[in-house]
Structures are given as structure tokens and as C-alpha cells.
């Protein structure tokens, strides 16, 4: 893959940096990662959306700061009978007709209140913490499980491949949401007790685990396919001819060739996991109220969509922004790593 030298030059700031880079190249060669990084640096849109995602995560991480310093309230604190002064007028947080106030654009109730008189901005940030925590952890678990299963199934012919593949096929045959609701409801009813481990029904671990399991086949199956084709490649054969064992071949010869796929998949997986979390929470099988999450907030807001549309629109918009930024970033990463690749999460 030849790169355009002029574009490379432009991507590097200043003559000095360019010379340093050239010197480094002479000594160490240009690795596939360096080439990918260069291509990514030229993709401004992907970088902008990547930055947006980082910003969203940073905001959510900083939720307690906003709650303590600006809004002076917590995510689960009701202000049903409170009043607030906006523009010289005194208003009820929740009107006598049950309609909560809209955005005040001030520190307190910045984006308005919900029907229980809770500050939406605070809940949005705390909910984002939960949504992103569930999404990222689930994507991480899915990735690890998929790598292990994909390598085992792809590299070993015969019984273990058949066992792993049919297990994945069974999971694959259920629509993600149905599997998620079924597992989520079953596990959340009385929590899980396995030996010394006990997880209560409202723990975040349950949606994380459920989402991670539901997405495993979507990543493990393509990985298995890639391992199947990689194991027939001559460089794997060369390693075997030199006496390398199966574990070494899997992890040092095959795995490095999978990293670009893994990286792209896990980015897209976070987006999908955040979406699935929202869907499950919306259906009551994910994060339990009053714990905030974008899904539960949308669920709360749907009932009042005509009188207080901001209740559903605000968390919905956050969801869209997160998923969009991750998808654009994931596409950019994919294009940078292998311009010819056609990796996507299929449903």
C-alpha cells in the first residue's frame, strides 16, 4: 500500500518533525501500525468524531463534579415540591398538572426536570456513566471471549471446532434483543448465586454479562473464519516447519494478523452494546430504575412525549451522538488499518 508522500509530509507538523520521522524510518522501517496511524491522521472526520466520543466519555466521568458544584443535587434526588427562580419568576419544578419544567439553561435544572422532579442533566451524565460502563465492559468481554473461541474453533479442526461453532450458531439463531431480554429477565429476577459469587438482581454485572454473551457470535464467527484462512497461509506453515507449537502459532503468528479486525470490531461493538443496553433498559430487562441510564430515561420520557418531549429527546440525542461517533471512528480505523477490508458487524 503506497502512501502519498506529499500527504504524509502535510500530516507531519513542520520540517523538523518530518526529518525525525524520516530518520526513524531509515532505522526501523515503516511498520503496518505506523502506516495505519498516518492514514488515520489524514481522515479528519474520523478524528473529529473520535474526539467527540472522548469528550462524551470525559463529561460522563465528570458527572459528580457537575452534580456537586453546579446542579447541587444528586441523580436520584426528588424535587417534586420545590420551586426555582428563573428569569425573575418563581416556578414549580413540577407543575400542578404534573408537567415538569423544561430546560432552564442555568446550573440547576439545566435541561429541565423529569416527572419526579429530578435534574435531567445530572441524570443524563450519571446515566451516561452507566450506559458507557455497560457498553465498554460488555464489548471488552465480548472481544476477549470471541478471540479465545475464534482461535480455538479456527485453529483446531475437528471436535472442538464443531462444539464451539455449533454453540455460536445456537446463540446466533436468537435475535439479540430477544436473547438479551430473556437472559436479562431470568437473571435479574433473583440475582445469581454461583458458589461463593453472588450477584444481586439490580447489579450492573447482569446487563454487562447478558450483552457480552449476546454479541459473542457476531464477532467470534468472523474471527474464526479469518483464523481458518490464516492457518493455511505459508507463514503459519513456516512456523510449524520450524517446530512451533499450536499455542505459539495461535498467539504469535495468527493473532497479530487479527488485531486490525479486533480493533475495528470492538469499536463498533461498544456502539452496539450501548444501543442494546438502551433497548434492554427500555424494555425493563437492563439497568434497574431508579438507577439512571439512557435507556431507562427514554423509557421514563416516552409516557410524556407530548407534554414534555425533552425527557425522551435528550437521552436519545446522547445515544445517537455516542453511537454515531463510535461508528464513524470505527469506519475510519478500519479504512486506516486495511483500506481493502470489509469488516462490519452484521445483524
Amino acid at each position: 500500500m503506497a502512501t502519498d508522500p506529499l500527504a504524509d509530509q502535510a500530516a507531519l507538523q513542520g520540517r523538523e518533525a518530518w526529518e525525525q520521522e524520516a530518520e526513524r524510518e531509515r532505522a526501523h522501517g515503516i511498520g503496518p501500525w505506523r502506516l495505519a496511524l498516518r492514514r488515520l491522521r489524514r481522515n479528519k472526520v474520523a478524528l473529529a468524531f473520535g474526539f467527540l466520543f472522548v469528550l462524551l466519555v470525559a463529561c460522563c466521568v465528570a458527572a459528580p463534579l457537575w452534580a456537586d458544584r453546579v446542579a447541587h443535587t444528586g441523580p436520584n434526588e426528588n424535587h417534586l415540591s420545590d420551586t426555582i427562580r428563573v428569569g425573575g419568576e418563581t416556578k414549580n419544578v413540577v407543575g400542578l398538572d404534573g408537567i415538569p419544567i423544561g430546560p432552564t439553561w442555568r446550573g440547576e435544572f439545566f435541561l429541565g426536570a423529569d416527572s419526579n422532579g429530578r435534574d435531567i442533566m445530572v441524570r443524563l451524565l450519571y446515566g451516561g456513566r452507566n450506559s458507557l460502563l455497560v457498553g465498554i465492559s460488555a464489548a471488552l468481554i465480548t472481544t476477549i471471549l470471541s478471540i479465545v473461541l475464534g482461535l480455538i474453533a479456527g485453529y483446531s479442526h475437528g471436535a472442538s471446532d464443531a462444539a464451539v461453532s455449533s454453540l455460536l450458531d445456537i446463540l446466533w439463531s436468537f435475535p439479540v434483543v430477544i436473547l438479551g431480554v430473556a437472559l436479562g429477565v431470568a437473571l435479574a429476577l433473583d440475582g445469581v448465586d454461583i458458589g461463593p459469587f453472588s450477584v444481586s438482581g439490580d447489579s450492573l454485572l447482569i446487563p454487562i454479562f447478558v450483552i457480552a454473551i449476546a454479541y459473542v457470535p457476531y464477532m467470534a464467527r468472523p474471527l474464526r473464519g479469518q483464523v481458518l484462512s490464516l492457518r493455511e497461509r505459508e507463514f503459519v506453515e513456516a512456523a510449524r516447519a520450524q517446530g512451533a507449537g499450536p499455542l505459539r502459532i495461535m498467539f504469535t503468528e495468527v493473532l497479530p494478523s487479527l488485531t486490525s479486525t479486533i480493533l475495528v470490531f470492538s469499536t463498533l461493538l461498544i456502539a452496539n452494546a450501548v444501543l442494546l443496553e438502551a433497548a434492554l433498559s427500555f424494555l425493563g430487562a437492563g439497568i434497574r430504575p431508579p438507577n439512571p441510564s439512557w435507556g431507562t430515561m427514554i423509557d421514563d420520557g416516552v409516557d410524556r412525549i407530548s407534554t414534555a418531549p425533552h425527557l425522551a429527546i435528550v437521552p436519545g440525542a446522547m445515544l445517537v451522538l455516542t453511537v454515531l461517533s463510535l461508528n464513524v471512528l470505527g469506519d475510519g480505523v478500519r479504512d486506516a488499518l486495511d483500506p481493502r477490508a470489509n469488516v462490519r458487524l452484521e445483524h
Partner: protein
Amino acid sequence: MTQHRSGPEQARPLANVETTQAEAGGASTDGSAPLVEVEHLKVFFPIKSGLFFDREVARVHAVNDVTLSIAEGETMGLVGESGCGKTTISRAIMRLVDSTEGAIRFRGQDVTHAGRRRMEPLRREMQMVFQDPFASLNPRKRVGQIIGLPLRLHGSERKEIEPQVRELLARVGLHKEHVNRFPHEFSGGQRQRIGVARALALEPRLIVLDEPVSALDVSVQAQIINLLDDLQDDFKLTYLFVAHDLSVVRHVSDRIAVMYLGKLMEVSPAEELYTKPIHPYTSALLSAIPIPDPEENRRRERMVVSGEPPNPINPPSGCVFHTRCPRATDVCRTLEPPLARYPNGHLAACHHPMNVSPEEVKATEKDRTSPLSAGDELPAASGANGSGLGDGH
């Protein structure tokens, strides 16, 4: 001694002595033990199908009863069309595919079914260079890691590896600084040099060269072949040189074996194969070598074989070549010819040999390396003729 190779490698007294011994016996029984012996080797690949349980429905007869031996220091050329099993033999010797029947011995030690642990000490002594220099180097690894892998696998300290790798790079004609580069930064010829350096790292006795130059440009082919030649002199290497092209192996081989559809057609001292091909198939292969001079090209008598090789799932009865052979008769269709021994350790499996005198035909014997399924019928003197085919080479 027609089997002397032309070119710079004549200063190899040791190798030539051993080569002569191996040739005199036609194979291996006397003198020093050969480095590699392949005996009645069969490699069949099952074709499986079935809904729930894989059932074997057919077998690809990739290698079908081949007996070969390679003496220490010798270069054995192995030639044939695509799909004739030559690569499978080399992979079976490297224990990359499982043999179905027969035996493979390395230095007299039976390795036919040796597992990874038993092969480990032997891997030091046998290495392989692969056909496609673009596929045989891991694109995600630096050259230093690629060449260093065999060293690491066989217990070298991390610190010792890098200087060794640099040394190897210099030995195969690359720069020492290339150690930190990635494969995609090299040309095909340079990549093949990296492949050679990797095979050389453990200073093996045997290097199996699986079409090492067929993916390269002609000018680069010559460079790689010269490099292989020099290395053979320096390290006293034994080569099994697999090629689909007779012109490539001519100058490097001591002996050449011609394969067709999983069977040996002819085994001959290298030069003699070009001046005196006995098997019609060899003659056809020689006719396929292009000659750059059109005048000469028009003058030569060519033996043209049409069609494709038959399906190795169901090889023809009798002589496997009879379906395409212009000289085939009824006996060829029913009776598999044994490898008949001609002077100079020249073997050919044909009922109607070419380029041999009636006396030579009369004096032939069935060689012990013949396939077990072959008949005892030796070529009849009347069937021989001295057609000048191939003499122009």
C-alpha cells in the same frame, strides 16, 4: 561422469564422492547411509462429506508409492506439473502433512509418524524455503523476528539472536540494518533471501526448497539460484529442489526425479536427463522449455502432449501417463511399468523407452524402488528406438 554439475560448484569433492555412491546403487543400500530416504511413500488426502458425520467419499492420490533417497551434500531436483505431488512429498518430509503409507527416514531414523516433540531435535537439521515469498513471511513481524524465530524456538538467548540475524542477513546479500524492517518493504527477491536466511539460521543439513524461484522474475531467479549454490558450498547443504520447470533445476541438481500424478516417471543424473530423456513424459516436459532463438526453436523436434493431467482422485490404470502419451499401447493401459534400471543409475518407468539402444533395453532390470503395484514386465527391445528427441539440449 555426466552427472557433474556445470558451473562453479565443482570444488566439492566430498559431496561428489557421496553423490557418486548414491548414484551407483541407483538408490541407497550401499555406501554411507543417505540423509533422507523415502520408501514407498503414499500420501492420500481424504475427501469428506456428510450431513452429521464426515464420511470419506474419495481420496486424492497426491503421492502414490514413491521411493527416493537423497545423499548428504547432494541436490535432488524434483520436477513435475502442478498437482503431481512434488510439493506434497516435500511437505511430508518436513512432517507438515501426514503420510498414509510407507516410510520416511532422516539419517536412518524413522520419522514417518513422528510427533512434534520427537521432531524437535530434527528440525534443527531440516528446514524449508517456501514458494511464495509474499505469503511465507508474516506481514506483522519485523525481519529480525522472522529470522530469529527458529533460533528462539531452539533455545537461543534473546541477546544472542540479533547479532546472529544480522550475520545471516549479510550472508544472504541483504543489509544488516534491514533487521528492523517489515516484509512489505522488500521486493520479491529480497523476501526470498529473507526466507533463505530463516532456513539457514539453525545451520541445517537439509533444506527443502519448494519452488523457491517460481514466483520471481527470471533475472532474480538466477540471483537466488546462485545464492543457493554458494550457500551449499559454504555450509555443505543437501537440497531437495522442487520445481515445475526443468530449465530451473538443470544447473543446480545432481540428480533429477520427474513425477507425474503421484508417481515417479524417471530418475536420472542431471545432465543426462536433458541429453537422453528416456520417458516420453520427460521428453514432453523438455519440449515445453522455450528456446529464445526462433530458428532453433523451429528446428527442434517437439513432443507435444495435449490435455490436462487426469484427476488424481481416480488415477488411470496401468501407466498413469497413458491417457496423454503419444506412444501408449495396450500394455500401457493395463500394466503399470516398473522403474527399469539403465546405465548411470538412470531409472525410467516406461514400456516404450526413448533414446536407448536395444542392448541397453535388454540389459535393464526392475529396480527395487519400483512401486509395489508395478508389474514385472520390462520394456521389450523392439519397443525401443533411438529417436533423437531431446538431443538438441
